[in-house]
């Protein structure tokens, strides 16, 4: 087996989760989702469009900042990525602040960005947060920037399909309104996941290991995809794909 980095596993996992999408977008400060989307596009046989925020070569929007949200409203945007200062077991996410009394929270994060909308409209939202700790993955978020699906009849074609972290992939069960541990990344254990997760989740007796990238995928990622994402995230590529970065200089 070819060796690969943590970031490469996350990227290839994301690419797998995006299979079949026609239009995928990534937001600000999202090198791993961006690389994952570009990898999925490369594997889609020309059937996927990807919009990388901050890119010039991979940004096809012409109608200002609102167009991404309008695309979601039209039902054209198949997948998007959201993170969270806190994420809880019902998939509520908090991008605003924690502790204290809103708006004078003890900790203040930048804010909700588009989450309060995209989370409801985009069919395949991938929650992505590398840090997997009880600080982030909490029982109940302190502030709901965006609510997990409640099956209460609210118009909601979108929602989370799961949560990807440095340790594992949780699938989100929309009927049960709970996460289910679907796979643990190589080198990590269910116990480690449990120790570092503040919410309860479903878990089979045997949890498979997250599928690892094959050699062809890794080659594609380390050459064409790394070059593509370097346009928008040069520092990320210098760090994660130092060989390519060196060759490009």
């Amino acid at each position, binding site marked *: 087996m070819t060796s690969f980095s943590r970031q490469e596993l996350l990227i290839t996992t994301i690419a797998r989760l995006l299979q079949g999408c026609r239009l995928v977008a990534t937001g600000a400060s999202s090198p791993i989702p961006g690389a994952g989307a570009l990898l999925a596009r490369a594997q889609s046989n020309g059937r996927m469009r990807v919009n990388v925020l901050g890119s010039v070569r991979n940004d096809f929007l012409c109608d*200002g900042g609102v167009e991404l949200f309008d695309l979601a409203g039209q039902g054209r945007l198949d997948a998007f990525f959201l993170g969270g200062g806190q994420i809880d077991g019902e998939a509520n996410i908090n991008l605003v602040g924690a502790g204290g009394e809103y708006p004078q929270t003890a900790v203040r994060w*930048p804010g909700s960005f588009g989450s309060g909308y995209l989370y409801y409209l985009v069919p395949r939202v991938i929650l992505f947060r590398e840090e997997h700790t009880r600080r982030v993955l909490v029982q109940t978020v302190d502030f709901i920037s965006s609510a997990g699906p409640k099956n209460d*009849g609210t118009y909601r074609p979108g929602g989370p399909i799961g949560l990807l972290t440095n340790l594992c992939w949780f699938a989100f069960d929309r009927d049960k309104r709970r996460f289910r541990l679907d796979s643990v990344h190589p080198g990590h254990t269910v116990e480690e996941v449990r120790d570092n997760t503040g919410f309860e989740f479903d878990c089979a007796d045997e949890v498979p290991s997250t599928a690892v990238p094959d050699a062809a995928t890794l080659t594609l990622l380390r050459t064409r995809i790394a070059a593509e994402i370097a346009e928008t995230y040069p520092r990320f590529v210098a760090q994660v794909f130092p060989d390519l970065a060196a060759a490009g200089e």
Partner: protein
Amino acid sequence: MTRDLGQVPVHGLDQLAAQIPNGAKIAVPPDYSGVAMALTRAMIRCGLRDLHVVCVPVSGLQVEMLAGAGCLGAVETSAITLGEYGTAYRFQAALKAGAFRMMDATCPAVHAAIQAGGKGIPFMPLRGLLGTDLLKNRPDWTVIDNPFSKDEDPVVLLPAIRPDFAIFHAPFADRNGNIFIGRRRELVAMAHAATQSLVTVEEIRDVDLLASEESAAGTLTAAYIGGIAEAPRGAWPIKLWDIYEYDEDHLKLYGEMARTAEGFAGYCDRFVQDQKAAE
């Protein structure tokens, strides 16, 4: 600097800032659209107070500095972030001190409310938002049952935003006061919604943007513009499109100095008050 461009007056930066009264509602764009930072420094020099800032849909250093200088009465935004250049310390400190009213939103909600303002309609509906603490903390928003749905179908209504001023920085104005805005259409939406737009530009060019279909497509027409000031590198230390980049060294310096109120005051002495002549 006293000539007009068609019917649009051209001012100096401090003159342009002086058009804005205390308590004004101003709309400002995100970093990628062109932030009028030189004008923001002039606004701080003017000692403006109680501004209601609507970020369309987010802001960064601009609101951070206005917060540090005590200019804010309310902030309506989907995020305040300095990105990789660190924490918005002055904004956070002012927020914790209750120095202004915080109106957290989500990006398409600000866009929709500004578009409603530009259309002169009283409100705009928006999907999403239901079940969030954003909605709970926005008594100015309301929820109705979609009258076109047979089943129960709650939908949020956002009242139109009509700012007194839209304020931004663009690459150039033409000889008639038209502004080149490219595909930054939030600038168009802001200008339509606002009573008037105060615009700084890298330069004034002796061309007519309306003369060709191609250039007209990326133009905000002069009818919306209340005043223009020439401000080369007017977005500094923020980037402007692909024309210049963030001044990373300066932003790091800002990040260090702005950790404390005293440090911020020192920063302002050096880069806001003393730059008056230069600007």
